[in-house]
């Protein structure tokens, strides 16, 4: 009897302890410079977690958002904070690929369970080890290149595309994948221009002038909203006849591009970018998408009640889906409260998800599997090229999937 009482007391106290305990899910993103993308991701996470009342397996879920402002060092520092946090389970990233690529080894060696809802750099998920801790539910450059190139060459009938890539690991990643895709289409050694972060008008003007003088008939752009705004602005300054079509990676949609390049200015441009195929602006909405959007409206206090209000919607969609995958993985493996072990368990669960997860883009049966750099290089990619579509900006700055 006495033993039973003690057991009950222990169980109750554990229950209490569990209920009062908390796990932390982080986001390390460029909140300052690409707020829209970071914010959209946060909202996606929050809506998904709200569906389970921010509690799982007896642990309250607390979100922590860290701002690396695109700086790989700060990102690493943020990761260090995450690693040092005994309650930290997983960390979502943001729009930028570079921090993830530059810190990939550190991340994996630190066993920091990283979920990527946006950054598209090819190498991010391709850490050459089975002990790969980075999972992506987003566009993958290695697969997106062909979609972009196809759109450029076929839809835009571009014969001599000019690659305009940022001087970052992400740019490098795209250079490789786009070059390969163009080569497949018979275009060898495409013209390439690189630019650095912090690009200013003058340099951008020179780049645009250079591209105009060349015989390029379209620009394939890989960059983010900050530099994208500068370059697109310069292109829009060109005479109408000289304005080349822009087929962009989706980096420009991660910030306030739609504001810096206003609708009127955009109207004069032939600008398209890659997206995943689901969008709230799509005419066909499923039950789940409608439910999620409704919750989003509630969550934001009615600020977002029209799909056009949701900027950088891809971030929201991917984060929502990815969070749901994470929830499923946690549910699948349970939590011990000892985060290193839990992170390892969750990672394994992600690679071995045994229940389908119904997301906005699709229902994920087994989105991830164990990575193998030879045989299974896409093991940590939840999406593939079939999930990618081209999009454009609507009049209100919303993303419209073609």
């Amino acid at each position, binding site marked *: 009897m006495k033993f039973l009482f003690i057991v009950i007391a222990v169980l109750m106290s554990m229950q209490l302890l569990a209920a009062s305990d908390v796990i932390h899910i982080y986001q390390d993103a460029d909140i300052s410079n690409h707020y829209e993308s970071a914010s959209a991701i946060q909202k996606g996470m929050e809506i998904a977690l709200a569906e389970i009342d921010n509690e799982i397996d007896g642990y309250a879920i607390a979100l922590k958002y860290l701002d690396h402002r695109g700086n790989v060092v700060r990102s690493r*520092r943020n990761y260090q904070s995450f690693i040092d946090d005994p309650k930290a389970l997983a960390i979502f990233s943001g729009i930028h690929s570079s921090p993830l690529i530059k810190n990939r080894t550190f991340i994996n060696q630190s066993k920091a369970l990283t979920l990527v809802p946006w950054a598209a750099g090819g190498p991010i998920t391709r850490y050459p080890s089975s002990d790969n801790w980075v999972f992506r539910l987003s566009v993958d450059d290695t697969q997106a290149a062909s979609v972009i190139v196809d759109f450029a060459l076929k839809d835009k009938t571009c014969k001599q595309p000019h690659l305009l890539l940022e001087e*970052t690991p992400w740019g490098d990643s795209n250079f490789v994948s786009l070059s390969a895709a163009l080569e497949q289409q018979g275009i060898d050694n495409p013209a390439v221009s690189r630019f*650095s*972060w*912090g*690009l200013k008008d003058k340099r951008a003007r020179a780049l645009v002038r250079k591209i105009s003088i060349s015989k390029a008939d379209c620009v394939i752009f890989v960059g983010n909203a*900050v530099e994208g705004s500068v370059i697109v602005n310069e292109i829009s300054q060109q005479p109408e006849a000289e304005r080349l079509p822009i087929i962009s990676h989706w980096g420009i949609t991660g910030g306030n591009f739609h504001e810096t390049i206003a609708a009127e200015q955009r109207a004069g441009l032939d600008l398209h970018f890659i997206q995943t195929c689901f969008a709230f602006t799509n005419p066909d909405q499923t039950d789940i998408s409608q439910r999620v959007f409704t919750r989003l409206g509630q969550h934001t206090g009615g600020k977002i009640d029209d799909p056009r209000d949701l900027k950088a919607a891809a971030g929201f969609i991917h984060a929502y889906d990815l969070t749901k995958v994470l929830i499923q993985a946690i549910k699948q493996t349970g939590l011990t409260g000892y985060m290193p072990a839990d992170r390892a368990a969750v990672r394994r669960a992600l690679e071995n998800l045994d229940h389908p997860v119904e997301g906005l883009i699709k229902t994920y049966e087994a989105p991830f599997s164990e990575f193998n750099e030879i045989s299974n290089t896409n093991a940590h990619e939840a999406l593939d090229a079939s999930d990618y579509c081209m999009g454009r900006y609507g009049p209100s700055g919303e993303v419209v999937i073609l």
Partner: protein
Amino acid sequence: MTIKPAELANKNPYLLRNLALYGTCFFFITVLLTAFVIAPKINSVFESQRSSDIQIELALEAQLFTRFVESQHSILRDLAGYPSIVNSVMLSNTNEPMLIDLFENVAIGGKSGRVILQDIAGNVLIQSATDLQGSYGIKQLWFERILNADIPYYFRLLKQTGKQFTFQISTPVTYNNFVEGVLSAEFSMPLDQVFIALSFGKHIAFKLSQDHISINTDSSHIDIAREDSLTLTSPAVTFTYISDDALVRNKKRALRNTILLVLLVGLGISFLLFSLYGYRNLIVKHTKIRVRPSLNRVYLTPFIVAVVGVAASTTAFLIINNLHQVSVEEQQIASSRAAITSIRERISGNLEILESTKAFFDASDTVERAAFKTFVTPLLANHSNIKAVAWLPKVTLDQRREYINSAQLDGLKNYNFRELSPTREIVVAGIRSAYYPVFFAEPLLGNETAFGFDLASNSRRFSALIEAGNSGDKVATAPINLVDDKITGSGILVFYPVYNSLAQSSNDSLASVKGYVQLVLRTSSLVAQTLENTNDVQSLYIRDITDEDKPETIYGTAISAEHTVFSESIDVAGRTWRMDVVGMRAEESLNWVPWLVLVSGLTFVAFTTAGLIQLIRRREVVERLVTERTAELRMLSSIVANSNDIFIVTEADDIDAENNGPRIIYVNEAFTRLTGYSYDEVIGRSPRILQGAKTDRQELNRIRLALEQGKPFVGELLNYTKSGKELWIDINIAPIIDIHGRIIQFVAVQRDITERRQAQVDREKLINELTGSNEELERFAFVCSHDLQEPLRMIRSFSEKLQLHIASDLERDEKGKRYFKFITDGATRAQDLIADILTYSSINNDVDKLQAINTQDLVDNVKRTLQEEFLAGGMRISSDILPTSHGNQTQLYQLFQNLINNAVKYRRADVTLKVHIGVIDADNYWQFSVKDNGIGMEQRHLGKIFDVFQRLHGKSQYAGTGVGLSICKKVVTRHGGTLWVESDVGVGSTFHFTLPKPIPIEIEDETQRKAS
């Protein structure tokens, strides 16, 4: 109408002098005001203006410096905006080729840039040079402040190498206005490109201070540094403007010298003017008689000359003394500079030991104790001021035991890590993460207690260690007391870090410190030894002013700024020492030149003043003489003009001219009155016009002879008036001789003696008549007296015979006897009377028989005649030693006898008669006195006792004829003397009389006579 100065002077001779006096007073007042009011005021204004100028200059220079830094910063900021740099910091890309190209080609400050790019973690992404001086790491506070955008940029002074200085500017690398990295550049620039003096010539220098680092432009040309500082916020440095107080002192001295010079010139001119004025006044003959000025005014000029001269001399002394002081100070400054240079070189020489030892450690992977000793010992041979060279390895807690064991194995049996307890006792060091113990030290002797002492246990030493570790350079501690040293005094410890690898990166250099080479330097003895070889430096005060708010004394005692002749700041292993020098005072360095000038000046002034005074006195004497002579002349002239005597002045020529004779050039009014000639009638003519028929030709010849011989002539001459009337004159002619002894004129004084001449004739006639009458009378008296003697004698004789004849009848006839007695007494008395009258009358006759008379003999003879009286009455006659007199012996005997007899006669019955004959010398006379103690006389009788036949007493009382004293009186009178009496009734009488002394020639004759 204008008045010329000369006229003005004539109108008022003192006007110019008064003007000069007022001018001088005005000048003096102006000078005094200048010296005591205006000059200090100018000094004060000068000082105030200078302070104000310096503050303005300081603010301006600081502003220029700020702009300079900002311009350099803007270059760097532009560079930091390069996208590739932004990219690099965002992505933490290291050594990107594009950046390398950029960094290699970037020009900052006109030179290839020494640039370093860091990400927000402080990681160096690229650096264009390997020998950067700054410390670049995340732990640096400035780095954090840049990342947090607390400061727009960071400026840091790094070091100074000669005339170059190196500084670091770090600026944030921003992306989208967020700080994402830090770009730093190190600029090395010549100081003179940055610090350009705008004013004050070259007498300034600049200093920048930041933390413990300071750089300064060349200040060797500054003698006395005055530092004015301004703390700037951006860049955060203390900007110091160093000006030279010696310049101000020199300017002040120049001002003082100028004032003194003006004073000297003014005083000199005044001195000369007054001297000349005084001299001129004294030598110029004034034609007009002036009112004699008061004594004060007479001596005012020399007084002013003296005052002005003394002031001028003193001023000259001050000027030369000032100049001397300048030269002394210049010499002292040179000595001070040499002394400080010597100290600097000595310190530098000692620090070279530290550098050598550090190089030794750098070159060796491991250094054994023996090797250390072998290396260091020879180095110390000639450096007595180095107390120790030590090696302080960085020892972690884990390594502690290992090091202790190692030392003990090396023979230091009691070696342990030690520290000072709060009670100042050496105890075993406590637990801490890292130690810096003294592991090796040379020389061993004297440093035994230092072994094992953990420098990390002492905050002052530890902070220096940390600083050295961070900077990679030598860093000294603030001064410490080397109490365990034999030579007590302050010293410093200097640390030089040794790193683990040669290629130690600039950032986090402290972590790679392997240990420190330590030098213990006896600064006090070093300075003292230097000063021993330096003259002119009285004392030296050295302070460590690295922390300006808390300076610490290294050597000497504080000295006030006004005594400082030289000051300089030097850098000693990262610390700033200020050295103030007190030189020998100018007064202490003997210089005789100013004193010589002063003494010469004063002597000159004394002589000049004395000369003026002498001239004034001579002038006074001359003026007095002139006045006296003038008065005298006027008096004589008046006497001559108004005299009743005739004055004639003739020329000395033509004495022999037969008709003409000497020409008259002057006659007085008496001449015209007595002779009847007018002045004009006689001028130019000869005195011969006055002579006539009865004029004695012989007398005229005598006159001519006297004149020819240049001798005066005295005589009487008969002249004639113009009307031909006889005019007897008493003539006195004297030659007038000029200063060359030549007779130029004759003056003749002639007195009209015509009446006297007539009176003389009349008197001679009367005398002749009287003499005859007297002779008849005397003859009659003599005959009468002589003839009366006979009948009287017959009466007496026959009366006596008759008395004898009838003697028997008379026996009973008393009456008859009495009648006979009456007859004989009467006859006797008549005889006596006649005898006395004869005597009295004979005195006249004998007075010519004068001779030297020994009065002593006379008195003795008289005394002998009175021998009986002595025996009877017991009287005493005494006398002085009586002299020889001149006179008639008989009469003088009569004189003494009468006077002594008189005393005997009128003696008092009840007392012993005392008679004393005294004598005193009264020039040409002997004054005798005959004093008795007799009955004396009433004063009223004294006047008549010398008259003939006067008696004061009845015949019955005292016998006598009443002629005795008359005879005495006549004798004395006939000898040319006087007789008088003093007497008191009942006391006695004293008769005084004078007799002539013997005539010397007669004495001589007498002597010759006696001798023969």
